[in-house]
């Protein structure tokens, strides 16, 4: 890719065998009293994001819960507080008009220098046809500007070359949008769709996802909830692997799971909504996993390249 003179970008690390190690912040039972992620001013989220970044975790998947701070208002804050951590945001295809979603994600991807992913949530995500159409429309809107549309021709006094920006005239079964979008092409072209598979009730997975969360196939990101106070091993109906025991045992079992499934990586999903629970995983488990070659301290860069490298391994 081209960069302007003087612009430093994190270069994407060469493809390695390292799987991705990320964090899935699902709605949590925090026991008595509000959890730190329920703080309406999102200071809990910024705390978590900075801790994850320090520990070298690759990405934070924000939850799509109806309570608590709005994830699309929290995401820019996370981006402002970090330099390498990628952030994956939920989008409700019933509630949020596609043009608005495409624009918000494009804006965020620019703010984050390409560290943004997204996924569909809510009942609309379970309707495969509707979800596929939404994804298709967002990608067409992002592609309505060529990557080199910004020409800045000083002699001709032309900022953007209009021949590189086109309407899309999209009319589908559920959505319509004329386009073009009014943002420059996002740094990643199309920010990656990192789609949770949800429970077994979910119909066919949303087409052309760049990565799947849950499930256990090649290219998937395993969701793992580590439990340190009991030796257990189980899989919940939504595909989350419960792994219990001492840290060394969790690391061993996780390595075996990755080898057995060919998955692209692991998303840690904490068992409770306390700072203590999060700290325990960040301070003890994450370094142990990195030491075992399950993920490596993040070098930053575009999320798409990181996912591509991990799914190739």
């Amino acid at each position, binding site marked *: 890719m081209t960069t*302007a*003179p*003087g*612009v430093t970008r994190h270069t994407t690390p060469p493809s390695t065998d390292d799987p991705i190690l990320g964090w899935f912040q699902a709605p949590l039972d925090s026991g008595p009293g*509000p959890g730190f992620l*329920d703080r*309406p*001013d*999102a200071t809990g989220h910024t705390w978590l994001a900075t801790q994850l970044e320090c520990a070298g975790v690759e990405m934070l998947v924000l939850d799509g819960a*109806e*309570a*608590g*701070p*709005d994830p*699309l*208002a*929290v*995401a*820019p*804050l996370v*981006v*402002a*507080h970090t330099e390498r951590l990628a952030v994956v945001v939920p989008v409700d295809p019933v*509630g*949020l*008009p596609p*043009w*608005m979603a495409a*624009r*918000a994600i*494009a*804006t*965020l991807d*620019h*703010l984050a*220098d390409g560290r943004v992913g997204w996924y569909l949530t809510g009942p609309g995500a379970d309707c495969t046809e509707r979800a596929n159409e939404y994804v298709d429309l967002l990608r067409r809107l992002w592609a309505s*500007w060529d990557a080199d*549309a*910004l020409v*800045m021709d*000083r002699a001709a*006094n*032309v*900022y*953007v*070359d*209009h021949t590189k*920006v086109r309407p899309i005239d999209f009319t589908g079964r559920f*959505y*319509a*949008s*004329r*386009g*073009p979008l*009014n*943002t*420059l092409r996002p740094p990643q072209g199309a920010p990656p769709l990192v789609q949770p598979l949800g429970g077994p009730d979910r119909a066919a997975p949303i087409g052309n996802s760049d990565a799947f969360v849950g499930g256990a196939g090649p290219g998937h990101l395993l969701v793992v909830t580590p439990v340190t106070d009991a030796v257990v091993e189980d899989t919940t109906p939504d595909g989350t692997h419960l792994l219990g025991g001492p840290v060394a045992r969790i690391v061993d079992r996780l390595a075996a799971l990755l080898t057995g499934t060919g998955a692209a990586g692991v998303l840690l999903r904490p068992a409770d909504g306390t700072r203590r629970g999060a700290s325990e995983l960040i301070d003890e488990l994450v370094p142990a996993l990195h030491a075992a070659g399950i993920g490596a301290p993040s070098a930053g860069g575009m999320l798409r390249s990181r996912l591509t490298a991990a799914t190739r391994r």
Partner: protein
Amino acid sequence: MPDRRFHLAWFMNFSNPPWNGQWAGRDGREWPNGKFHVDFARALERACFDYMMLEDSSMVSDQYEGSSRVDLKYGLYAPKHDPVMLAPVLAAATRHLGIVATCSTSFYPPEILARRFHTLDHLSRGRIGWNIVTSSEDRAAQNFGLPRLPEHDKRYEMADEYVDAVEQYWSAAPVDPADPLPSIQVKGSYVRMDATVPGPRSPQGRPVYCQAGGSPRGRRFAGEHTDTLLTGAGSGNRSMKEFRDDIRSCAAAAGRDPDAVKVLFITSPILGDTIEEARAKRRAMEAAIDSRIESTLGHIGALTDNDLSGVPLDEPFGDLKTNGHRTTLADFMSYGDTPREAALGWSMKNVRFVGTPDSVAEEMGEVMDDVGGDGFLISGGITRRYLAEITDGLVPALQRRGLVRSNYEYATLRENLMQF
């Protein structure tokens, strides 16, 4: 001694700064990373501005020549990135400055807007404002799958209902965080909402309402709802006073305290080390005739859904109509009998104050004394050089005269805005 203080705000959007001048730096390419706007917000905070207003629109215009050429060549409407995504970044970089983001009642689902501003008010600790627009361009509607926008006055009717719905949402948020979170159902003629309030009451309760709109229907809306109104009616003291007095009587008619609406007049001061230097700058701006005519006709055409590309520049205006920006169109046509005259006059219309920081500060104080209040919205080239002239030249000169604030006394935007 009477308190002569008035308010200052800055008109911006999350768009490119001027890129083709001698002092443009590299921001023409790098602005999407937000750092230029962060620097801007910090400078405005240092100068104790009340707020930064982030204008917005939802389209690439092809009104001129049936092509997006002029829009994109000059960066008039597009590119323009989502101001709501920028607002948390600016809030994180500042502690006192108000941040006002534009969202359209015609396109934003009300439960999404209500939740977003609820969180933004919490994130900023009570410094968020909502610039309420109804949108005016059919091209924008088509991006949302609608053939066209409803008619002007009907959009305001819908906006009344919309504001009522989101206010129910915000006021239902419990003051005590331990209280259960309520559900809100609204079934209006236009607005439907079924949502659970996601958390406790935000610091301001609701965002500060900002609005620009000078049509009779827009003024009524302002009287009923708005906390701060932006207007281009800043060319002469008499028209400014008339406009402000009318807005205040609209507020009184709606049962509100007239002092609860702060009217800010758009202006672009031109500053120099000497008065002669400032005047020379103005002359240089006026000399750029060709690009001013084309970009102004492109701009006005896009705002009002009229293709002005083919109009003979030196013949009297034909009959122009619009379903939005009515005040703007009338204002534009008042600057001359022909498109050339109007474009040249209108494009310089915000230039009233030309001089040194001290001479302009003196003049601004006199104008405000005459008009009665409530302040100015600085608009113009968003270059770092111009920013420094305003924040480090003009503002200290205003502060020395006791005309603007020298520190923030309150935590929230609304309190600072209502202080004087």
